[in-house]
């Protein structure tokens, strides 16, 4: 098995694990972590593409490496925003679950005749 294939499979496994976590776990913090796991997998794939696409005598294709840096910055900001929202939610309600939106739900239920 060639190196790019191995790395590609690792990326795929990470994406799969992350997707599973994002869908299955109800806790927002776990969902945020799962999102980062998928992100890790996708960034690994960028690396694989850079290695495979190496042409013109470079050690690797530089474009995906530039993309990956931007991608990491975006994923980092997304994580920071999500964690900040979650912390604020915890301060307001004392819980860090999305089940705490019971007021919204109750209101929607009440509203139905």
């Amino acid at each position, binding site marked *: 098995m060639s190196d790019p294939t191995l790395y590609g499979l690792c990326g795929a496994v990470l994406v799969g694990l992350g997707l599973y976590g994002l869908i299955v776990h109800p806790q927002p913090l776990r969902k945020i972590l799962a999102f980062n796991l998928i992100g890790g997998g996708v960034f690994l794939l960028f690396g694989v593409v850079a290695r495979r696409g190496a042409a013109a005598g470079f050690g690797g294709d530089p474009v995906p490496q530039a993309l990956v840096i931007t*991608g990491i910055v975006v994923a980092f*900001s997304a994580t920071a*925003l999500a964690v900040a929202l979650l912390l604020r939610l915890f301060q307001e309600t004392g819980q860090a679950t999305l089940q705490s939106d019971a007021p*919204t739900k109750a209101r929607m239920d009440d509203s139905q005749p």
Partner: protein
Amino acid sequence: MPNSTTAGGFLLVLAIVLPAVGVLLSVALGGRHAERVALILMPVGLTVAVAIAVGVWRTHNVLQYFVGSWDPPLGVVFRADGLSAAMIVTAALLICGIGLFARAQFPSPQEAETRAPLIFWTLLLAVWGALNAVFIGGDLFNLYVALELLTFAAVPLVSLDGRAETLAAALRYLLFALFGSILYLLGTVLLYGAYGTLDIVLLSGRIHAEPVAWAAISLMTAGLLAKAALYPFHLWLPPAHAGAPAPASALLSGLVVKAPFFLVVRLWFDVMPGLADQAAAQMLGILGAAAILFGSVVALRQARLKLLIAYSTVAQIGYLFLMFPLAVRPETGHSWSTAAWTGGVLQAISHAFAKAAMFMAAGLIAEALGHDRLAGLAGIGRALPIAVFAFGIGGLSLMGLPPSGGFVAKAMLLTAAVAEGQWWWALVVLVGGLLAGGYVFLVLARALADSIEPLALLTTISRGRQAVAVALALCAVLLGFLPLRPSALLQIGRPDIAVGGLR
């Protein structure tokens, strides 16, 4: 297509840079000046938007700007075709309307610094810049960054008041959006790996019908659907859009959900023209139809005005996706696809105006009454006649009654569906219109009823704010005077689609 920056290309840079400068200035100067910065930038931004549209119209060609004079695939291109120009003008008009409307709700603090106005005005400009970046982006990765900027600007708008339930709504919105964006990024890396470029024009020349392209486009489409809140990814939308303050709701429902839809259109019609699969397009259509039926029925059962309008957004987003089964051409090709494509885009534009007006009207009603329960609306038609009028004519567009942009859009979708022999979509359009009529009537009947005891209004609502809502609703009506055929502006930069159909 000329392979260099065109004459008006710098306008595209201005469309992104102006709001970005506004954001920086607002943050630097603080909450007391944020409103002024936004109000000064609005007419300037509107002028730039109109100039872009005029430039595209006059030259009958795309405007392009090559950043740093680098050619793709190494460089990044901003490109505005007719569709981008129409969306940029729509966004500029709506942002100006929302800004004028929000002045009373988020006034500059006089003495102590307060947070909400600073954040609202800064994020309004940030959303504007991100939307423009989405509309003119010519590189799929650049579009990913623009889409993320849009999400980061839109999510905090939901929880401006800081209540626990809006925080939860914002967090749920963010989680759905992150799920969508990471799928989009995964598709992007697959496309780059297979074809070595992310520039839309280059990619459209290299892409073939093969598994890696299918996988990439499916992943990207699925991610964008989660961001556009198409059924069954709509769960986050009603609490987020109904919980936000009225100007923010108008922005989110009118414009922000249109950006991912715009990108799906780009992917299906620009990145892989002629390759799109009929079965996949039918799938999108089925999801759209489900959204129309589900959203409308649930809207009918709401007891609060803002939630009703939010569920109606879920339904109206469904109409946007009816264009895919009708406009994606099978190999044989038929002349009706252009009509369906135009209908879908017009639906996006007219819904933006109508829905923003309706959310503004609902916000004014809630402000005056202190609640937005449908059961307590009796007599409001007498107290706030202009706001209720705005709600009513916005509703015309949702129902698809003439004269309104919604009528033109739905008539085109309907005719295309019948002409192509896909009559089931026509049925969905008609039933959706009836259901929309039902929920708009439900509100108007309550609002126009006489109240038993005189209404005690909490505050007086200025006529200016009601007038803004009416002006936006009238924009939706004015779109109804467009001729019932593919628009010439929207076709600019689309050589693959012959102007035909409804003549």
